[in-house]
């Protein structure tokens, strides 16, 4: 049995390669459409991963900062802090003193000219409570709760307009979420369309392969070749075509990953545009399996319609 299987396998590979050569125009068409659709799948998967990282890095920065007025009574600040910690949506609360705030400011923006700060007669920066949330999407709820709190009005840096004493990145997060949702939707639609087109191309290539071999098929049926024996070369041809398309897509993406991505992240150093090689391999595997799936699917579809056994 095993030798028979080995002979069969050689036969199938030979048959599908011969058939591939015989109608290379259709095969090439199928390969190119598979290549393009998988390339797009890869690009949207990869950029999705990158975007996810960017959003995460923004989310980390979305903490609510509550500025305290100079000389706010310590017990009231403590009360405010305790109230915040009691809130279920709040993760941590850190008290930053005026000196600490100045120090951070110097580190962040005035590294090149610390003497500018030295010129200041007094420290203009307020102390603050820095609040981290468990889920950044709850930011507006928490902010509303703080605004309604009596403790807040007592300690706020600007009692005349307490809401100005709160700083948070609500809009940034919301915009990012909208943008990613749109990008995701658009790429899903594109990928779906390309997948359908690829299936049609594979279907056509296999249909022509079946037509080109109709005499052989008739004789195979006559002498009693089993159905799977007649079908396997076509299935293999479809898989072969889409595998070539997948490998081309993976090749192109590797070039993007190895040469373009580092340049891009150099240009936009403020964004965390890096991808681990593990993630890259994962994307490649997804593409490979998607390719095999499409090839086999297209071939199966064609056989159901054009190869009655």
């Amino acid at each position, binding site marked *: 049995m095993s030798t028979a299987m080995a002979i069969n396998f050689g036969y199938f590979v030979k048959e599908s390669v011969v058939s591939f050569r015989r109608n290379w125009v259709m095969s090439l068409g199928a390969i190119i459409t598979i290549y393009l659709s998988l390339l797009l799948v890869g690009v949207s998967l990869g950029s999705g991963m990158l975007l996810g990282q960017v959003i995460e890095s923004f989310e980390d920065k979305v903490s609510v900062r509550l500025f305290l007025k100079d000389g706010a009574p310590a017990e009231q600040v403590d009360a405010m802090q305790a109230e915040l910690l009691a809130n279920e949506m709040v993760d941590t609360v850190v008290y930053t003193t005026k000196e600490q705030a100045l120090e951070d400011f110097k580190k962040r923006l005035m590294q090149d000219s610390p003497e500018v700060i030295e010129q200041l007669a007094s420290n203009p920066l307020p102390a603050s409570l820095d609040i981290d949330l468990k889920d950044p999407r709850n930011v507006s709820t928490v902010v509303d709760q703080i605004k309604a709190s009596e403790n807040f009005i007592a300690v706020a840096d600007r009692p005349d307009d307490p809401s100005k004493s709160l700083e948070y990145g609500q809009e940034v997060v919301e915009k990012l979420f909208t943008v990613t949702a749109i990008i995701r939707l658009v790429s899903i639609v594109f990928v779906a369309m390309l997948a359908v087109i690829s299936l049609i191309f594979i279907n056509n290539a296999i249909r022509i392969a079946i037509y080109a071999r109709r005499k052989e098929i008739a004789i*195979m049926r*006559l*002498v009693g070749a089993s159905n799977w024996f007649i079908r396997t070369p076509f299935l293999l041809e479809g898989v072969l075509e889409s595998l070539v398309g997948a490998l081309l897509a993976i090749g192109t993406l590797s070039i993007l990953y190895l040469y373009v991505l580092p340049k891009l992240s150099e240009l936009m150093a403020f964004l965390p545009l890096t991808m681990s090689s593990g993630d890259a391999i994962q994307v490649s595997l997804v593409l490979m399996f998607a390719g095999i799936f499409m090839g086999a699917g297209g071939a199966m579809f064609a056989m159901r319609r054009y190869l009655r056994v």
Partner: protein
Amino acid sequence: MISMRNVSKIYVPNKPPALDECTVEIAQGEFVFLVGHSGSGKSTFIRLLLRELLPTKGQIVVAGQDLTKMKNWKVPFLRRNIGCVFQDFKLLPNKTTYENIAFALEVIGRSKHVIRTQVPEVLRLVGLEEKMESYPDELSGGEQQRVSIARAFVNRPPLLLADEPTGNLDPATSLGIMSLLNRINKTGTTVLVATHDREMVDSMRKRVIALEGGKVIRDQDRGVYGYGD
């Protein structure tokens, strides 16, 4: 070998049936002619035996298997037991004589060893050892039909069906083909030949089943083609 009971085949409802209540028994090792005009139901008869068609009514048993109850996936295995020869040879033009015959074994998964021993053997039987490397278009009609008989017989099926095997051949060549089929019959293979070659049938003196309008009108041992036309 073949048992047909009250078999009818209707292609188009409310039109005369292609086969009408046919009952035929053919024992193992027999040589049988199936004769009749064009449209008398000969081809339908053959196609029913190959289970290319299912009968509208009746029961067909071939090599011990009831074709009307057979599952689709089993059909290829039925066909491995039936050799088949046609008027138009059905050879692959891009394969040599040897390759054409080997193909029939290849596609049912026979090993290279089996192919290498069986193909030359069957070529000797049909007298074409010398033409092993020739392509079909380099062979005469009679030679091509021999290749097609060799392909049908290489797997040693117990039943050989021939649909107008001499339809494209001159009388002298036809005689050669018939004697080859006769030789194959002598090895124990049941042979059924559908034909309207009157001289051939009359000279062979084998069992004759005559069809007309889808009905069996005559079934005669050591018979002749018929009377009148």
